[in-house]
Every structure is written in structure tokens, then in C-alpha cells.
């Protein structure tokens, strides 16, 4: 029997009892669908992250923080901790441990580090528009995050200029009539001057003027969700925040942006050096990798469930084909009597299993893609619940993953088919012909 004939015959055999084939296929479709949606989801998120990284370019930078701030500090166990006057100096409003001057000096001393830009933690009070309206302003984005920011219009603040970006959701402060920020043309914000109010240590408010140069939209990492000052503006605000009292307050930094000479070569050495000091250095890739890691973990859990579904479906195939072999005992006997070898009989029934798998994977993949892309459009579209997250792709096409999914389903289907196929191949033509 030719392979083409085997395939055609197997195909028409699977269509013989349509209901039974359909029900068996459904189980596979569920598995294939879940696998497809999951792979598309993880591909979408990874694509989003990659886009963000691409926007950031190839700058050789490390973001350095206290290891404890990243949840990576030494685990000293519960109970009282020994006091370290150096480290315990300051913490941010959120209780995050900060970098001290000595930490910065240490970082500057590491081989391969060309420049260290310490980032002050600034907590202003309000932002006032030219119209005189005041808005609460508790947190600012860190200037170092600028390169990863998704801009709707305008550009990033100049390092030495008194400039700021605002998120698109803040546009309403410039146009009181608009019902929704999405109705406002972000261009109107550009060139606007705002005043930022901030209290010093003596609780006296001072103001600084800044020009809006860009409008951002929050991305997956949350960057762009708050106004972001230039480095100069951030420093100025920090000056004010720490003035007013006649005491020498040691500087503390929420993080430091470290320029590195040849990041690829020096990355590990610098990270190791930092770790010994209880610091942690991360590239933007590392930071976004944390998000990717979470998504991947979720994806693997879903893959696991889908594979369990496929495993269950494979027993459906075994069951269906065993029934089919039983029903077709005489047909098998006849084929063997007419000279079909056991190998070909095995091939024919395995092929039926593979065709069931193929039907299931085609339908499952198609349904998964259709649902995935529709959901992506609905959720991340302008009006969708996730429409506000800049640059977000929830679902993307990953041909390699799809090919792999189809292959996995076919292999499972084939494996499930081997038992019934072996039964069929073993049938004795005489017994089969005598079978009533």
C-alpha cells in the first residue's frame, strides 16, 4: 500500500463515525488551544519587553541598589538585627534602603566603571499648572529610567535643563473641559510651564519651574506612569528637600546609574564586586527579565495544564481506536488475507491516530490564534482595559512555538495510537474472518 493511500484511507476511516472522531478531537483541541494561547501570551509579553529593550538601545549601564532593596539581601532570619551605622542611615518613604556616599565611592572604584550617576529620592508636594491649579505629586519617575520610557509626543528631558515629562493621564490638568484624557491632543502639553512645590526639612515649601517637553504613557514596567524630571531638576528638588535645617545630612541615593566600559565583558565581575558589598547591579535587561520571569513561570504552569489535558485526550484516542479496531476486526482480517502486511496494518491505524491528532491540532491552533488575537485587540486597543499600558502586546505569533505544539500533539497522538495499532496488526486473518 502506498503511503498516500494509507493516509487517504486512514482519513476516510476517521470520518466514518464522525461523532466519535469529533468528541475525541475536542479533547485534543482543548489542549492545543491552551498551548497556543499560552505560547502566544508569553510571546506577546516577551515581544513587549524586547521592544522596550530595543528602545533603550545599547547603552552600557548598570542600575545599582542595595541588595536588600531588591529583596536580595542576606537573609539574617527573623528577630533583632545587628545595627550597621553605615547602611542604616536612611531609608525612603517606602522603607527602602538607600545607597550612601561610601557606596557610591566604592562603586566608582570598581574596574570598568567609567561614571556613576547617583539618583536622589525626591518626594515633592504638588505640581501647579500655569492656570494656578495644584495637583498632588508624591512620586516622580527616576530620570535614569528615561531611555525605557514610552513617549506619546515630545522627547526626554535634557540632562541639564529644567524640564519634565508628564504621563498622558495627566493631560486633563491642561484642559478642564475634556471628559477623558484620550480626547486631548497631547501636543498642547509641550512647552507648558509648571511649578513643582516641595517642602524642606523645616517644612517650608519652595517651588521650582519646569517645562513640559514630553508626554509619556505607562509601560509594562510602570515607567512613564508618573512625571519624570530631568537629572538637573531632580538634583535641584533634592537640594531643596534637604535644606532648611542647620545640620549636615549625609546624602542618600535610591539608586545609582553606573556607566560601564564594555558591559558584556565586565558585567559579571562588576556584579560580583557589588554583591560583596551588599549591593546589587542590574542591567535594564535584568530588570525587565524579572517581569519576563514571572510571565514565563505563569506560562509554564499553563503549559503544564495543557499537557495534562493532552494526556487525558490521548486516552480518548486509545479508547476510540480500540473500539474501532474491535468493530473492524473483519475488515482487518480481510485486508490481511488479501496480502496486507502487519506493518502496513499498524501504519494504517497509527495514521488514523495521527490524523485525529492533526485535526485536533489544526482546530486547536486556529481557535487559539483567533481568540488570542481578538483578545489582544479588544484588551489592548484604545478602549480596552489594558489600553493605557504603553507598547503592550498581549498576544503574538510565535511560529516556532506553534510548530512545536503541533509536533507535540502529533507525537502524543501517534504514541496513543500505537497500542490499538499493534492490536490491529496482531489480528490473525483466520480469526478475523471467522469473527461474527
Amino acid at each position, binding site marked *: *500500500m*502506498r503511503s498516500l*493511500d494509507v493516509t487517504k*484511507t486512514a482519513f*476516510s476511516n476517521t470520518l*466514518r463515525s464522525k461523532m466519535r472522531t469529533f468528541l475525541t478531537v475536542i479533547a485534543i483541541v482543548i489542549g492545543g488551544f491552551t498551548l497556543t494561547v499560552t505560547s502566544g501570551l508569553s510571546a506577546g509579553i516577551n515581544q513587549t519587553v524586547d521592544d522596550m529593550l530595543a528602545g533603550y538601545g545599547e547603552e552600557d549601564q548598570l542600575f545599582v541598589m542595595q541588595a536588600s532593596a531588591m529583596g536580595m539581601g542576606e537573609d539574617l532570619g527573623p528577630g533583632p538585627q545587628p545595627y550597621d551605622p553605615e547602611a542604616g542611615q536612611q531609608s525612603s518613604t517606602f522603607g527602602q534602603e538607600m545607597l550612601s556616599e561610601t557606596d557610591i565611592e566604592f562603586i566608582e572604584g570598581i574596574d570598568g566603571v567609567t561614571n556613576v550617576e547617583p539618583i536622589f529620592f525626591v518626594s515633592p508636594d504638588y505640581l501647579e499648572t500655569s492656570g494656578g491649579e495644584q495637583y498632588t505629586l508624591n512620586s516622580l519617575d527616576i530620570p535614569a529610567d528615561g531611555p525605557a520610557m514610552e513617549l506619546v509626543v515630545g522627547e526626554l528631558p535634557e540632562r541639564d535643563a529644567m524640564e519634565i515629562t508628564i504621563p498622558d493621564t495627566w493631560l486633563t490638568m491642561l484642559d478642564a473641559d475634556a471628559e477623558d484624557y484620550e480626547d486631548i491632543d497631547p501636543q498642547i502639553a509641550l512647552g507648558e510651564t509648571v511649578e513643582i512645590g516641595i517642602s524642606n526639612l523645616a517644612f517650608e515649601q519652595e517651588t521650582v519651574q519646569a517645562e513640559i517637553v514630553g508626554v509619556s504613557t505607562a509601560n509594562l514596567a510602570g515607567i512613564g506612569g508618573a512625571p519624570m524630571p530631568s537629572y538637573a531638576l531632580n538634583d535641584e528638588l533634592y537640594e531643596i528637600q534637604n535644606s532648611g535645617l542647620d545640620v549636615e545630612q549625609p546624602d542618600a541615593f535610591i539608586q545609582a546609574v553606573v556607566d560601564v566600559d564594555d558591559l558584556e565583558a565586565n558585567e559579571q565581575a562588576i556584579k560580583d564586586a557589588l554583591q560583596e558589598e551588599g549591593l546589587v547591579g542590574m542591567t535594564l535587561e535584568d530588570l525587565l527579565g524579572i517581569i519576563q520571569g514571572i510571565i514565563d513561570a505563569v506560562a509554564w504552569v499553563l503549559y503544564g495544564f495543557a499537557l495534562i489535558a493532552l494526556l487525558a485526550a490521548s486516552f480518548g484516542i486509545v479508547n476510540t481506536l480500540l473500539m474501532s479496531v474491535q468493530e473492524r476486526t*473483519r*475488515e482487518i*482480517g*480481510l*485486508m*490481511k*488475507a*488479501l*496480502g*496486507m*502486511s*502487519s*506493518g*502496513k496494518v499498524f501504519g494504517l491505524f497509527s495514521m488514523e491516530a495521527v490524523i485525529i491528532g492533526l485535526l485536533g491540532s489544526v482546530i486547536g491552533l486556529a481557535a487559539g490564534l483567533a481568540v488570542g488575537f481578538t483578545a489582544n485587540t479588544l484588551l489592548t486597543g484604545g478602549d480596552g482595559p489594558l489600553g493605557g499600558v504603553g507598547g503592550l502586546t498581549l498576544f503574538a505569533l510565535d511560529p516556532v512555538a506553534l510548530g512545536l505544539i503541533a509536533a507535540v500533539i502529533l507525537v502524543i497522538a501517534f504514541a496513543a495510537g500505537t497500542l490499538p495499532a499493534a492490536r490491529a496488526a496482531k489480528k*490473525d*486473518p*483466520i480469526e478475523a*474472518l471467522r469473527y461474527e
Partner: protein
Amino acid sequence: MIIRKTESIIELFMKEGVMSTPVLETENLVKVYGRGPAAFHALKGLTFEIHRGESVAIVGKSGSGKSTLMHLLALLDEPTSGVVALDGKPVTKLKPKAVSGLRNATFGFVFQQFFLNPNQTVLENVTLPLKIAGISKSERNEHGMKALEQLEMADKAKNKATDLSGGQKQRVCIARALINNPEVIFADEPTGNLDSATSETVEDILFGLHRDHGITLVVVTHDEDLAAKCQRRLIMQDGHIVEEQTGASTTTPTAARVPAAPGERPQEQPSRRRRLMKFGKGGAR
């Protein structure tokens, strides 16, 4: 009428060997079903041969081992001991795949139960042996249509096999048995499921093939009329061949019915068609 004894076999073989070569030979063929105390000796050491172009009937009471013998001859089953030789070569030692190939290439089968696949068309059923042999679809269909035409069934080619009458079904089965140009056609009770008129049609077709194409015919039957049309009859009882009759008994039924010259070929369609049509109608009655 010759009562055959083992001692005379060699002598007989020599005598007949001059006339024609045996297409099938057996030597001390034994088939035992089951084991130990439950063992049942269905065949108890049979030695005989079937010559090329011969028509042989295997007759005997129910349970005497006719089907068992036919299955062994047709290489569908393996003997417990003894040898079956095809064209002088013992097949007992061949690999299953080679045996399958031999069956496909040299034998045609007609069974009492038709064994037609109800989901497939008549043409697909008829061409199954060629499909198994790995022949292309167009060639299969060409041969299939020829075989169906030969049996006056061409107009039913596209029908489902279930839509046919019993006689038509058996004709389809014969077409299937014919399609690979077999050397031997094995028929186990080919008329067992048919009324007498239809039986006669089917018998006519089988003997027509035997006569016109020189196909060796091995028929297992209860039907004395059918057995009488065969050149040789092996009469079985309890796993032995107890008697062998040669020569078409009394009058040769085929000769009586077909007055044509001995050189008649199947190309002479008109006379065949008329004859078959008549019986075809009889079968539908």
C-alpha cells in the same frame, strides 16, 4: 474412482507431473488446534497436490476440516507440521511479509460471507487488493472497471457495497478475487448464502474464469452440484481425505451449458453478456 493411498502418491505425482506442474503441493499436513488435553486434530496428515489450471472441490461434512485445509493452502494459516509448497517451493519457512506478498500476488479469495466494506463503493471494494499491492489509483480503477465489466457490474461501480443484492455482492467479490490476475482462486462456500438461481450464475462465472483464463480453482463446498462441476473432488472426513474423485461427474456441466468452441475467449462478449444477463435477472428475482 480411486481410493488414494499414501504409497501411490509418488507414482501419481510422476504420472501427473508429466501433464502439468502442481501449483500447490502439501506433504503430511497436520493442523492441531489448542494444546494438551484440549488439543483438537483438525487435519491429520494430508499429502496431495493441485495442478495448474485444475478445478478442485473440497467436500465433506461440517467440521471435517475443509476450511482449515483451505486456509493452509491459501497461506492464511500455518500448519502445525507438514509442508505447503507453492510452485514447488515450500512456503513454511518464509517470512510473514513475504507470505503476505505471495497471497496478494497469486491468490484470489471468494468467501461465503462477502466481506465487502459497506462504507466504500463497489469499485473501491474491488480494487482493494491492488491498493494493498501499491498500485496507483488511476491504474487501480482501470483494472477495477474491467473486472466489473467482465461480471456485468460496471453500472454499479459507484454504488455503496451495501446497496447490492446477494448475487451482486458475490459478483463483486469475484471481481475482487480476479483483479490481481491470480493463479489460484480460493472459494469457501461461494454459493452458501445464495438462492439456487443466483448460485448457478456465480458458479458459471467461476468456471468460466477457470476455463477461459486457466485460473486454478479451489472450491470448498457442501453443494453437490457445484462439486460435480469440478474436475477433481477431495472428500474429507475427520481431518482425512477419505476419497478422491476425478473427472467431472456424469456430464460436464460447463460443457453442457457452453456449446462454444474450446478456443472461446472472454473477448467474445456478446454471448457471455446475454448469458450473464439472464442469470443476473434470475438472481435479482
